[in-house]
């Protein structure tokens, strides 16, 4: 049933037509739909901030900040975290509890590493004199990375619940909804991070900056 098909229905003609229609729910688990709406809300949040970022850049006093190299390692950690969650998801789908467990633990671990790495990045920036209020570029970096980190922290809470349930779970199938939701959320936050990181790189040197430090490990 397409959206337009639905909206073209003539409900006043339907009564007594012998129909016994289903309710027309979307064929998607309710939890996942709720999460998707949440992801849309977060997207709006970051898109608005991104727009403000770009607008604010143009006001003349913008001094791009040198991204600390540890951000590349953090990015790697987040990619691995996301990959591990994907592994866990595949594990529960194929009913391989060991794979699911390993993926879930690894995912959480790498996410924690990412968060710790972000704090290191903040300290380094602070040490280099990139204070929050000294330039809008700094402010935006701190704000965006903090918001992103907070969302990941929220994800860690959900992860903690899933991991706690892992002990009592009889089968991998029981964990499936939780693992699916975590994986989806992690992939999303990875995309958000890549976008933020890209924004940061783009404003301090364009493609050169994006390509040059690659040896640090994008693989």
């Amino acid at each position, binding site marked *: *049933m397409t959206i337009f098909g*639905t*909206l*073209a*229905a*003539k*409900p*006043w003609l*339907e*009564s*007594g*037509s*012998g*129909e*016994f*229609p*289903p*309710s*027309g*729910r*979307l*064929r998607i688990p*309710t939890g996942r*739909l*709720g999460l998707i*709406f*949440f992801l*849309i*809300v977060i997207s*709006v*949040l970051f898109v*608005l*901030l991104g727009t*403000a970022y770009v*607008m*604010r850049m143009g*006001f*003349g*006093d913008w001094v791009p900040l040198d991204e600390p190299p540890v951000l590349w390692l953090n990015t790697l950690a987040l990619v691995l975290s996301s990959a591990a969650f994907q592994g866990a998801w595949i594990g529960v789908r194929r009913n391989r509890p060991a794979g699911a467990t390993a993926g879930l633990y690894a995912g959480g671990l790498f996410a924690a590493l990412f968060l710790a790495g972000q704090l290191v990045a903040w300290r380094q920036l602070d040490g280099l004199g990139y204070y*929050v*209020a000294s330039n*809008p570029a700094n*402010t935006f970096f701190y*704000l965006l990375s903090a918001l992103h980190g907070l969302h990941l922290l929220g994800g860690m809470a959900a992860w903690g619940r899933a991991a706690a349930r892992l002990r009592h779970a009889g089968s991998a199938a029981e964990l499936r909804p939780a693992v699916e939701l975590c994986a989806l959320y992690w992939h999303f936050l990875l995309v958000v991070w890549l976008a933020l990181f890209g924004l940061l790189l783009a404003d301090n040197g364009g493609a050169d900056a994006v390509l040059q430090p690659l040896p640090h490990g994008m693989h």
Partner: protein
Amino acid sequence: MAQTAIPTGTYDDTDHDEDLGDGHHEPRSFITKYIWSQDHKVIAIQYSITAMAVGLIALVLSWLMRMQIGFPGSLPFIDPERYLQFVTMHGMIMVVYLLTALFLGGFGNYLIPLMIGARDMVFPYVNMLSYWVYLLAVLVLVASFFVPGGPTGAGWTLYPPQAILPGTAGRDWGIILMLVSLIIFVVAFTMGGLNYVTTILQARTRGMTMMRLPLTVWGIFVATILGLLAFPALFVSGLMMLLDRVLLTSFFMPTITSLGERLSYGGGSPLLFQHLFWFFGHPEVYIVALPGFGIVSDLISTHARKNIFGYRMMVWALLAIGVLSFVVWAHHMYVSGMNPYFGFFFATTTLIIAVPTALKVYNWVLTLWQADIHFTVPMLFSLAFILTFVSGGMSGLFLGNVVVDVPLSDTYFVVAHFHMVMGVAPVLVIFGAIYHWFPKVTGRMLNDALGKFHFWVTFLGTYAIFFPMHYLGFVGIPRRYHDFEGIAFIPDSARELNAFITVAALVVGAAQLVFLFNMAWSGFRGRPAGSNPWNATTLEWQTPETPPGHGNWGPRQPVVYRWAYDYSVPDAEQDFLPQNYPRPAGDGLNPEAPPEQGGLLR
């Protein structure tokens, strides 16, 4: 879609009686039943009571402001700073903490599950958290009355730089608490909003297709989507301003000298704030209007015993208004010095949005045309809503045009316009809705005589308050002014008019106390209502118990056979056919569902 057999697969759709799964057993103790409750009906009542309690504060503030304007100096403690603090808190509370919370947290929570035949929201725990976080936001807001310097006096729009500069009332603490409270509110709203949208999409009972939803649910649905997309803008702008205030960053703060001192701010853009604020602020108008539109459609149809005219068009119009409301925001910024082409664009979209809005008004009127109108209290409020909304909407057409808006901007004409269209009109719907659903919530009718008294005083009284303000605006009387002493162009007649308005405001305020009394008294002593006092078709009136019990539907969820507007159907024995009422068995048209599929409730 011509589906005659009952699907028996494992697909979600069939197991709709399993919804009361783990973690949602009937609560036993007083605490889990009435306080820390996950039941959508209890949460709805908590939301409503909290919203009305803060609303009462906003109402009292409006009396104080009116006393100062109508009888300057009569309450000596209202100095200019206090006046602006009252304006700000009154406006913010009314728009965000009363109307948004009451329409979505209150009516949304109560009505969505009942109207779609569900047992509860799909995420009851998150729903409960939503209320407690909202309460926290309210407490933080109210706390700002008690901190040194008092609440912020920046105006509800909180424009920087002035909002966070020394010299603005509440600059030390008030503004911080205001911003923190708004941020918390957005979190609460998001938790609730995700629930409403997902519940409407996924928890509809068998037979309740989207196009069979009552318009109330449609209105709440679209408004919630608007909220989910618009509130992040408030969140972002609040957060950024908080950083500007606390950490001295310069998102919105330009290079500026204040009280002879050059501040450390520099390079920020106050206009950026305005864009973000109104990207939230305009949809916000529709967040409080669309649920009202939906509710009024249902009240009119029920109390005029006639199907709503143009149901499909009503749904489309809601959607169209929802989409358009995101491309009109800068009509609040005509005097901000923006590019004239920009103004042209936004004036055009603003006029376009009037089309689907007018369409809804025509459809209400056509629904009433030759209908069997029962002048019940809900109907009276609905009719008053249409009138008020049209009056307010008309002045909106003026203000939407740049050349007309520029001289009228920041005058009482604007105050008149927005009070009519987004102050009084939604409040009238809320009253109508309370008179309509109170019997379901409490099992008792509100007193009719007191209700009619409340209606006439409120309706005529609010006109007496806000209609004359248009004239004050034409004369050029500015808004957000503490007093008008010594302003040469203001004639004496304007002062007399202001005194009159103040008297009217006090009378209207007193009538609200009568209403509160009516609720308190009727809740315990009112006439028992029975399950369906208005002979309405929608599902909430077909519950086995009134007030509905935990899980709403007893052992079986209802099954829906028709849309929500089968009133005065030819050859039916009653003048209405409830949504879960199949054609009489025997005509072979509408096979009753087998009991294991839900069956029929009555």
